[in-house]
């Protein structure tokens, strides 16, 4: 399939979106269902490999945010594997928060950072742990069974690579929440997700800044990422 042609269509759509959200929503949605998500994923993976000289074993270390993503609402049913409706979405988010929490724990223990960088890593890690606790409680409250903590493993070879990975994970996390916002049914779940979403955005921006990158890699409008793409991107870090 001509991924580049698809990509340029998406860019055009994105431009249209910046001129008026209401108008282009339908066509974006149609585009996504035609593409079935796989093109967006391909574009994401291609973008990941494009600007790194020392990525090594880190398969997603571009650190500049998610690109090539598209409208994710409605057609994105990859959260169903975690449960139905809002419970599935919350368990999907919980899985990502578990992953982030474990990542920061491993990084804090790695000895690669000290001083204010280590402080920031600990702070972000403790905030992810709070997200885990809140989502676990919210899933239970909704009558669901919280997703199990995944076993994870991260490549922690040097400080710069770790910061890049952190930036990628946070940018992806922010895009993941944004990708689910319009699918959430319950206003209280939505309010909770939004209050976490913007914090993930803050983490991503801070890490981008530490790396000398722009805090707003998507420009004026952050791009959402569908669950299928996100889950595929974090797959290398999930051991079981």
């Amino acid at each position, binding site marked *: 399939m001509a991924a580049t042609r698809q990509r340029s269509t998406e860019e055009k759509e994105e431009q249209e979106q910046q001129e008026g959200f209401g108008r282009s929503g339908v066509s974006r949605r149609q585009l996504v269902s035609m593409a079935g998500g796989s093109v967006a994923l391909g574009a994401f993976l291609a973008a990941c490999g494009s600007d790194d000289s020392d990525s090594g074993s880190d398969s997603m270390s571009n650190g500049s945010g998610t690109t090539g993503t598209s409208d994710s609402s409605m057609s994105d049913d990859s959260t169903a594997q975690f449960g139905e409706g809002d419970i599935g979405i919350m368990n999907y988010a919980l899985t990502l928060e578990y992953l982030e929490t474990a990542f920061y724990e491993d990084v804090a223990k790695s000895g690669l950072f000290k001083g204010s960088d280590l402080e920031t890593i600990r702070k972000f890690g403790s905030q992810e742990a709070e997200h885990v606790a809140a989502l676990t409680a919210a899933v239970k409250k909704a009558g669901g069974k919280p997703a199990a903590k995944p076993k994870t493993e991260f490549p922690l070879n040097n400080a710069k690579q770790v910061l890049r990975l952190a930036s990628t994970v946070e940018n992806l996390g922010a895009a993941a929440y944004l990708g689910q916002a319009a699918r959430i049914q319950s206003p209280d779940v939505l309010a909770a997700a939004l209050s976490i979403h*913007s914090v993930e955005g803050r983490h991503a921006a801070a890490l981008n800044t530490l790396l000398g990158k722009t805090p707003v890699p998507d420009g004026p409008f952050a791009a959402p990422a569908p669950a299928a793409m996100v889950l595929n991107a974090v797959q290398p870090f999930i051991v079981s």
Partner: protein
Amino acid sequence: MTEPKTNTELTHPELAAIEVDGTERSDVLMKGALAAGAVFGLGAIGPFVRKAMAANGSKGDIEILNYALTLEYLESAFYAEALKKAGLSGDLKQLVTTISTDEDAHVKALTQTIKDLGGKPVKAPRVEFPYSDTAGFTALAETIENVGVSAYNGAAPMISSKDVLEAAGSIVQVEARHAAAIALQNGNQPAPDAFDKPMTEAQVLKAVQPFLVS
């Protein structure tokens, strides 16, 4: 489907969008519920909120979009002025230029979206900002961006249209990113809390009141 003007809108167009309770919107209950939920964002909001929202339809969305547009106009003017007056240079100037471009794009997109939905975009409010040096500017910028994040997070659950909600989400993430980048400039925590607390329109209005000239 033109938006009928309320009295407030006729007398103070810049305030109409950030009025606490539009008479049409039966949102006293909703706001109380959201305020309760705002403590942690979880659990406290009941199913009646959904019902209230369903009754609003896209008319409510236009009001919310105009509320957002007013805030974006304020931010846009704030950064445009700063680029001329705040004595910026180097990385900070570059950051502010980026943020300024983003806020202008938000104004444009919100204006167009309101028109597309058959509404009438509010006019830019008259504004003034109390700072006299670069440090004063960056301190104020951090406050204004944080208010912006809380305003979107507070209003978004009341949005009916999925497209409008996704657009608001896309913008609020960028506001949060601005807030974090500016906080780092100020030597502050980029993410002070694990949860960004939502603010009601009343709280936001109070916070931006000092910058609105009537």
